[in-house]
């Protein structure tokens, strides 16, 4: 935040002047104040330089026919990159559509057994039975998704769903579900119960409290999860070629199979630049969406 200029407090209320450290703590909690901004501004330049270096290196290198064919922009690299981005975006969108509502639902009192009750007096009682175990068990399922080796996960889904883009997206969704789900739940649970109490006490409905208080306050944590999921998915999408999902993994694989380092480096370099770019976009979004005042 840049608006931390301290205004001289009204003499009438000097009893308890707001601590100046507020500015300092805000710098910490917003993830880096001016330093964060510098990083955000410098990153695209660095990425552009990296891309240029890669382009010049690949363009300047002497290539045989196999390399020329594998590194053709119009027929290979560009469509592969498009697929790669498609895999990443689709899986992330689906993860968001699944994990955020799930996280919201699972943090509602009726699904929580032994939810942190500190300070939150008199929540509705859990509805009991199987439901109260739903929240921990959903987290367990999501955990399994991430604990399984990625390779194995792809093969499992291949056996189940057959080859193709859709199967790859499904596998990526399962893989990236956990960080978003977990962060949604954590983000919602770390909202100060007193704030919710105050909202309800002033006549906000539960839904209104969720929409205008809980979710905005959970946004930074949820977005951190989304950012993690995005970066994971860019990397994981490199394996999608295994089940016919396409992506830059094809190029990397060709390089390895043909023992052509130039091809491998090009594929790997493009994945790396893509991952960093996605991370940067996510960081910008995080910055824009983070509520002021936190």
């Amino acid at each position, binding site marked *: 935040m840049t608006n931390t200029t301290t205004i001289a407090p009204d003499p009438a*209320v000097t009893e*308890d002047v707001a601590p100046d450290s507020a500015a300092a703590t805000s710098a910490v909690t917003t993830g880096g104040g001016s330093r964060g901004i510098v990083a955000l501004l410098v990153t695209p330049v660095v990425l552009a330089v990296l891309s240029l270096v890669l382009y010049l290196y690949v363009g300047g290198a002497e290539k045989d026919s196999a390399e020329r064919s594998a590194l053709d922009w119009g027929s290979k690299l560009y469509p592969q990159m498009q697929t790669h981005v498609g895999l990443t975006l689709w899986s992330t969108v689906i993860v968001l559509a699944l994990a955020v509502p799930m996280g919201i639902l699972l943090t509602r009192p009726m699904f929580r057994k032994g939810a942190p009750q500190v300070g939150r007096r008199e929540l509705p*009682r859990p509805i009991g039975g199987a439901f109260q175990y739903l929240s921990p068990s959903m987290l367990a399922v999501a955990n399994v998704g991430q604990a399984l080796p990625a390779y194995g996960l792809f093969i499992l889904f291949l056996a189940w769903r057959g080859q193709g883009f859709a199967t790859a997206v499904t596998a990526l969704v399962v893989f990236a579900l956990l960080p978003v789900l977990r962060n949604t739940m954590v983000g919602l649970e770390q909202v100060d119960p*007193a704030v919710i109490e*105050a909202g309800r006490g002033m*006549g906000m409905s539960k839904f209104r409290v969720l929409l205008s208080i809980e979710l905005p306050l959970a946004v930074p944590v949820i977005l951190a999860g989304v950012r993690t999921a995005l970066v994971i998915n860019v990397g994981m999408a490199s394996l999608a070629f295994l089940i016919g999902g396409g992506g830059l993994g094809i190029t990397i694989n060709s390089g390895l199979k043909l023992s052509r380092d130039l091809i491998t480096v090009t594929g790997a370099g493009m994945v790396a630049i893509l991952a960093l770019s996605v991370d940067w976009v996510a960081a910008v979004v995080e910055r824009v969406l983070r*509520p002021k*005042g936190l």
Partner: protein
Amino acid sequence: MSEPTAEATTSDLAEDLAAVAPEPDATVTHDPDVADAMIRLDEVSKTYAGTAEPAVAALTLDVPRGEILVLVGPSGCGKSTTLRLINRMIEPTGGRILFDGRDVTRVNPDELRRHIGYVIQQIGLFPHRTIADNVATVPKMLGWDRSRIRARVDELLDTVGLDPSIYRNRYPKELSGGQAQRVGVARALGADPPVLLMDEPFGAIDPITRDRLQNEFLRLQADMQKTIVFVTHDIDEAIKMGDRIAILRDGSAIAQVDTPQRILALPIDDFVQDFIGSGAALKGLNFERVRDLTLGDFPHVRHDAGHAKAIQILDGSRQQWMVVLDAHERPLRWVNRTDIDRSDRRLTEVGQAVRVTVEPNATLHDTLEAMLNSSVGAAIVTDARGRYQGVVEIEVLTEAISRMRTEARAHYASLGLSTADAPGLAPYAPPALDGTS
């Protein structure tokens, strides 16, 4: 609601509630004593599922319009639960809640709460919203137009002592605890609700700021005349803030509900006595003023009246000391017989100087302080221009205390209540010297 006014108009609430509440119940019996009850709890109870003991058992309580009722009691007695039953943050399992004669036990609780201010100890400001947005929470929900909201927010920030031009666009994290609770109070007053519920609002604030906020709040209340239910565990805060105090024991059972004066004068049983702690009589002196006392004759003499006259007056009384006044009847000196006998010196030069006097509107507590500071053990009362009015002796204070007790007893007798269980005034017990008290 049409115009943004600071004054609570009760017709506002009636209008608002008419939208959400059914017609007044014809079977409501109006106790003549509380015909003007703004809040009425009628046998309200709360039993949590799975527990046999009710957390609140059949509580009946009336809060007259414009009164601060303080719920006070030991931890876990259910005072917060009781407060939260009133705005139905906790749904009662039995009984009825009436606002201004209307049964609101079954109206939409969200709509209901928009017409009840709510202040909690943890304050709970929305950290992602500016101070102005926080204060505007309820007016926004009620659909006020923008200019009206802006005017109201500025007015409220002003009322609680925060300069709107400085604080309007700040965020809660930039405020100290005291400032944050000022905003908390402003937010609760957002749509000018006639009723305010406060759950230990000043409990988490340092003692000096707390004292200031209490005083400011009492001044504010003198203007706005809200009906307030105030929860605290601190008996001194209860005595200070309450028009009436309800002392609760386990299960929110009312041990005693009355004015601070009467509770201090006559704790109804050992529980109340213990809860008030030592020094009840002393605290009770805060509620009596010198002007309400009948001051007996006390020997006094003009400084130029002469020694013989002074001796005659002093000997004619049963007192050891007399007061010497100056030409404007202002008290000058305390003199005793030995002093007067020194006939070589003027009356204005013998005896002890009068250092402390009290005015008629001083409390008996201040008067006692003045007595302790006087070498004679009595306090001289003067009017606003410093003229001698009389003397308060220690016996007058003990009489006042016993009169308060007698009045309280008579009051309870007239209500048909027995005061047989009331413990006598606690014998003086020296405070423990371990620093814990």
